């Protein structure tokens, strides 16, 4: 805990920490790792497939690294080659590492399965990335197909049940499979921004921000203060809107029509503010590399200022109606419990992780944007059940409102306009990654650039971890609570999309 606090207070310490980590990697895994790149606050290692077992073993068991969580395994094509990207992180030491393994395009499926199996020896969560068709057909006796409710429209669940209890659950995300993820290949860098919002359509600003910050890190660009403040303002507005949407979903599942309608109205209010500023709700297309698309006027800030107290008052009312009701609180209590250990093991991030009692928020831990300037707390839960997760969301809405107030109070006046032409930039072959604390968790983007084109773009959304963990969580719960548990995990369908 002390280390975590130290990191968050002294950000310069992070660079020292990364350098030390890099030295340790070189010392322990000199022969196994082909090359180490430092991507700002993270490390990318290119690993030979044969050495992957040793690398993973060292990373997991060596106390110098102590990396306990698997975030994602993705497969992507870069030029003629195919790579597997394994993303690992440690919430305790606040550090993440990417392992890049090359596989041959001829034996693509076999080699991928082999890598996943190797990873599964150390990280249990890796088991979900392999083909599980045999399992779901063998052990399931009931199927719940994708539903109308948002967040539950991207997967089918195969269940094996014992009376009204769930014994095992298998999640199949096949319904969310896209034809191709190569949409960005023929596009300029600037043209990718509106396309990327679809990966988190509930809070479209975060994928844009992640992509643009990774370019900024690559170019070592310094961002004007005012545009950072505008970015934070929009981020917090989207966070509020997303969390209200979460409450809408929960109240719909619970059957509280009054709260459902009230929450929808408030979501509408938050989205209208966003629409007024950006011109769009789902695809804001507002963030640009080095700044934002347009400056916000006094009229915009006045709209926010006039709507915030109403929003706050109504959210307090909704909270009182939802959680002050003994029956509703009783329904949410003790259901879908995620304990601290399994949350960390499955790489959970965001409010779901914080509800299990782990204080891990990139806004504070990594000094994201300029959040360090503001006073806010990261609320954390205790028991990790549905009620905790709902509590955390409400608390985060209040914190976001407080951050917005501070932003508007301290909004710097200085701004300058300089048009830069992104298509005229020519990069050498380089890779970069950046993480953003989106309302669901840690939204990570990995890019590879050459000349003025994106060679590869890997999206690592936090909803995937929540969805895979739900298999564990659903076990031993009642069949009737299935929707409630899944709604409480706040799954965004866009992040589950894969090719």
């Amino acid at each position, binding site marked *: 805990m002390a280390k975590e606090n130290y990191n968050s207070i002294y950000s310069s310490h992070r660079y020292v920490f990364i350098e030390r980590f890099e030295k340790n990697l070189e010392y322990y895994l000199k022969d196994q790792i082909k090359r180490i790149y430092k991507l700002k606050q993270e490390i990318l290692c290119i690993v030979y497939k044969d050495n992957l077992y040793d690398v993973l073993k060292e990373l997991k068991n060596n106390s110098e690294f102590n990396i306990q969580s698997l975030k994602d395994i993705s497969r992507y094509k870069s030029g003629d080659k195919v790579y597997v990207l394994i993303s690992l992180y440690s919430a305790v030491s606040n550090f993440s590492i990417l392992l890049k393994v090359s596989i041959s395009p001829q034996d693509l499926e076999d080699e991928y399965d082999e890598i996943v199996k190797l990873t599964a020896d150390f990280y249990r969560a890796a088991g979900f990335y392999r083909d599980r068709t045999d399992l779901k057909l063998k052990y399931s006796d009931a199927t719940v197909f994708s539903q109308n409710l948002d967040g539950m429209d991207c997967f089918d669940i195969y269940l094996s049940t014992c009376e009204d209890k769930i014994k095992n659950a298998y999640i199949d995300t096949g319904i969310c499979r896209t034809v191709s993820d190569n949409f960005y290949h023929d596009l300029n860098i600037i043209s990718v921004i509106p396309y990327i919002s679809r990966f988190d359509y509930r809070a479209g600003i975060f994928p844009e921000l992640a992509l643009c910050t990774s370019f900024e890190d690559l170019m070592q660009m310094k961002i004007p203060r005012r545009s950072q403040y505008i970015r934070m303002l929009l981020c917090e507005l989207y966070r509020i809107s997303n969390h209200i949407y979460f409450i809408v979903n929960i109240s719909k599942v619970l059957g509280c029509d009054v709260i459902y309608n009230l929450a929808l109205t408030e979501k509408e209010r938050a989205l209208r503010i966003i629409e007024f500023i950006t011109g769009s709700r789902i695809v804001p297309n507002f963030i640009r590399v080095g700044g934002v698309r347009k400056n916000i006027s006094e009229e915009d800030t006045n709209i926010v200022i006039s709507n915030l107290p109403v929003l706050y008052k109504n959210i307090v009312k909704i909270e009182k109606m939802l959680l002050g009701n003994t029956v509703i609180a009783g329904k949410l209590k003790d259901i879908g419990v995620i304990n601290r250990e399994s949350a960390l093991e499955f790489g959970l991030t965001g409010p779901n992780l914080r509800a299990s*009692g782990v204080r891990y928020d990139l806004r504070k831990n990594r000094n994201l944007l300029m959040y360090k300037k503001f006073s806010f707390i990261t609320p954390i839960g205790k028991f990790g059940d549905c009620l905790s997760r709902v509590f955390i969301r409400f608390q985060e809405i209040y914190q976001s409102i407080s951050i917005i107030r501070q932003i508007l109070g301290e909004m710097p006046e200085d701004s300058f306009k300089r048009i830069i032409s992104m298509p005229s930039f020519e990069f050498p072959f380089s890779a970069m990654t950046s993480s953003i604390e989106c309302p669901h968790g840690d939204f990570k983007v990995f890019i590879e650039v050459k000349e003025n084109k994106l060679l590869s773009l890997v999206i690592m959304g936090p909803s995937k971890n929540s969805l895979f963990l739900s298999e564990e969580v659903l076990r031993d719960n009642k069949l009737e609570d299935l929707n409630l548990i899944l709604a409480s995990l706040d799954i965004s369908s866009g992040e589950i999309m894969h090719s």
Partner: protein
Amino acid sequence: MVNTLKEIAYLCLIFGINLYICSYLNNKLIARIELRRGYVTPRIRGFTYPVLKLFKYLSKDYKLNIWEFFIFLFSFLIWSIIPITATLVIVDIDFSLIAAAFFYIMLLLLNFICASRTSYNFIFSQVAKKVGVLLTFVIPVLINIVSVILINKTLSLKAIVNFQYHFWNIVYQPLGFLIFFISILLQLKLMGISKRNTFLFTENIDKEGRGMGRAISRFSSYMILFFLIVILIILYIGGWQNIYFIRGEIIFALKFYVIFIVLLLLDKATPGLDSYKYLIGINWRFLVPISIVNLILTIAFLVLRNIYSFI
């Protein structure tokens, strides 16, 4: 603005009613324990006694010094950050526990300053001793608050109550609850609310003047007691958490009165501890060491659980 005024009005109403009931209960119960009749209930004078007493104070003297005014102000300010129910809080801040502790210590110090305004050296030394002892009883309370913060990982009183829906904090901190309770009891003894005609902070007022100042001192003593009981309920026994279908507000009021009556009865059942040496002995030999042990146990639990994952 209207909302805040409404909340202030609600708070004033709640405190008015509670002050009335508590001072009535106090006098009546204590009289019964002392085998007196107390105020006779069937007569109207019995019910209106607290109001009559207030008028009596007001009629005697109108003198009000600046420190008494500050005490009066702080007695109200202390309630601006403490949530009485899930929504009834005037200033909702994230570190309300720290602010509450600060206001409490400030209130004690103000009482000390107010009581030291005397021309009699003897009275000053007596009051200084009493307030000094009273301040030492804050130390175990603060140590226990640290343990509660470690368990709940938050500084917000609201959040502390919200996360007691599963188990009350008394389950994790039985020792802390015990120490807190004893500390309140001893502070009650020192403040002398249940004793007739003896006041901690008004010894000079008894001699040098009575009236409004005395009413305010009495008021502040009650506020300190109320504050301690409310903090005890919020920190350890679930605050305004619902029990089955009973509303949290009702449960909160019930808990408050149960603790208040138990404190009064215990106060009367134990001998009057006027010896400061004895009281200091209790504090430094019993309350402070046990609260430190409790803190060490809590830290050990957290270290084993969160860092080494043993438990």
